[in-house]
């Protein structure tokens, strides 16, 4: 045994309290897993959509997503979003959790994209707010317009895009939050989604948790051997190396996960423990969803004629 291994350990100098890149990364991984399980917990709540047959729910919510894509008038899109919020409440999903899940990332990202569309540069029209007038502004080789204003038409375009994305994402998240994963896969097969597509989804969902656990272990192992403050550059180097190691591990892991599924009879066909029979609540929900969709489309047509 080497002599250094027998020497008494010197207490390390205390490091800073600032969370490192790695700390945030590990926290992010844990948060992802928590969110996934929170979704499963929400799907077990005794709410309205949780009681609906997964096949009916899949078709109706996808139908509502399609309606969100095709209607163009702001009141129609707002009505769809309002309907989604009513469903969130009736399905007993905490509104705050839903908002974080459905409206934080995608709609905010969309907002960033549609910002230029609000200006006269992209969407000409009546000026709502003038940002600058008769000025020569250049950013490097690019010259900005001499006059730039936020236009009424631009705001309407941006609002339309935001409402459309928010409504579509809301219906999709509602489907995910109110349907157990296995039921969702089985419903996809029931509506004739190709077996290979469902199979890839099933494997990916199972595999992502194994991979996340491995990633968390790597990060924790590194943190347990890190004393004091580590530079952000070093953290990033480690993250790069860890990503490479994970990639190597991933094949062996995917084979294990797949083997475990195949060994228990999985042949690409997802099955659910629940027996699905259409009940009055399914028919009631389907009728309601269709009525809402029809009403929204009618409103859109009427508003189009008025305009």
């Amino acid at each position, binding site marked *: *045994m080497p*002599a250094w291994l*027998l020497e008494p350990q010197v207490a390390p100098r205390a490091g800073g309290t600032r969370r490192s890149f790695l700390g945030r990364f590990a926290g992010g991984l844990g948060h992802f*897993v928590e969110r996934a*399980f929170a979704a*499963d917990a929400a*799907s*077990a709540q005794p709410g309205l959509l949780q009681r609906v047959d997964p096949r009916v729910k899949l078709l109706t919510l996808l139908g509502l997503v399609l309606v969100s894509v095709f209607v163009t008038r702001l009141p129609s899109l707002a009505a769809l979003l309002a309907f989604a919020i009513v469903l969130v409440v009736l399905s007993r999903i905490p509104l705050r959790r839903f908002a974080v899940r459905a409206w934080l990332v995608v709609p905010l990202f969309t907002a960033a994209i549609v910002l230029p569309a609000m200006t006269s540069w992209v969407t000409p029209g009546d000026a709502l707010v003038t940002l600058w007038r008769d000025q020569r502004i250049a950013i490097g080789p690019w010259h900005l317009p001499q006059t730039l204003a936020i236009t009424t038409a631009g705001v309407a375009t941006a609002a339309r895009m935001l409402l459309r994305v928010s409504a579509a994402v809301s219906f999709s998240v509602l489907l995910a939050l109110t349907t*157990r*994963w*296995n039921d969702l896969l089985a419903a996809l097969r029931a509506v004739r989604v190709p077996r290979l597509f469902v199979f890839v989804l099933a494997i990916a*969902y*199972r595999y992502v*948790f*194994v991979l996340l*656990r491995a990633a968390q272990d790597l990060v924790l192992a590194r943190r347990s051997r890190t004393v004091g403050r580590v530079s952000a550059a070093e953290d990033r180097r480690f993250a790069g190396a860890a990503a490479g190691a994970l990639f190597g591990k991933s094949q062996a*892991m995917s084979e*294990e*996960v797949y*083997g*475990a*599924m*195949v*060994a*228990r*009879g*999985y*042949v690409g*066909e997802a*099955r*659910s*423990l629940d*027996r699905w029979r259409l009940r009055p609540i399914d028919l009631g929900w389907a009728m309601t969803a269709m009525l809402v969709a029809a009403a929204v489309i009618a409103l859109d047509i009427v508003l189009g004629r008025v305009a």
Partner: protein
Amino acid sequence: MTATSTPVFDLREVSFEYGHGVVALRAVSFSVQRGERLALLGANGSGKSTLLKIMAGLAAPTGGAISAFGAPLAADLLRDTAAAHEFRRRVGIVFQSADAQLFTPTVRDEIAFGPLHLELPRDQVLARVEDTLRMLGLDDLAERAPYNLSGGEKKKVALAAVLSINPEVLMFDEPAAGLDPRTQQWLLELLARLHGAGKTIIIATHRLDELGRIADRALILAEDHTVAAVGPVAELLADRGLLLAANLIHEHAHYHGEVLHSHPHGHVDDEALEHGEPLPHEHDHGAPVPEGNGAPVPDDHSGL
């Protein structure tokens, strides 16, 4: 043990090589009889897990032939859904890593997964899930996510997920790995009950403790991935040379005063050796301990 003329598994010169040229098994031949308890012994990396995967129809040998229940176990055969279901109903495998096996939203779903995908009637699936939950004392965990369970609980759920299929043949890859002593004892008792119920049990392990309680016969894989020996557990355990060569026991060195003393050392309990020769301490008195060479290693005979 009720031996019949048709073995459950019959392997002839089975070899397996991974794509990048790494050999896992070389010309492995043996049979497993119905109702038998067989231990696959070997050091880490000797090919035990690969052998189990081949027997479970999860990997196809790159050489030789394997038959299960009297019919060739070919990859083509398992592509047929009916044949695959028939085989999976009869053969269950509990993986070493429970994490790879448990990723449905709840423990209940996990236990139902096998029977459900093997197309058992729904009522039977529900009844089996409840019975298995009760038998393994998992009732309280039924709605929990397997991800959040302790290591021992995960192992129990992994086992429950296979038991609910009620296979004739149960295969375990290092079943005691990571279990606390109480859970290990529980597992031993469960294995005894399953064997009593007529199940064929195949266990891959590198540990010799409790071997006499879990297997009647053992196959030892050498470190060159060939079969070093097949025979009754007691006979194999008595062959110290064989166990040393297969890296299942090691030369254990410790100190008597300042004198280095070594003897073969494995983790074999008295019951395992009931019918064989216990491993004697072979007193090879070595050189006195040099000064300042660190503290003597205690002669700790607890499990690794």
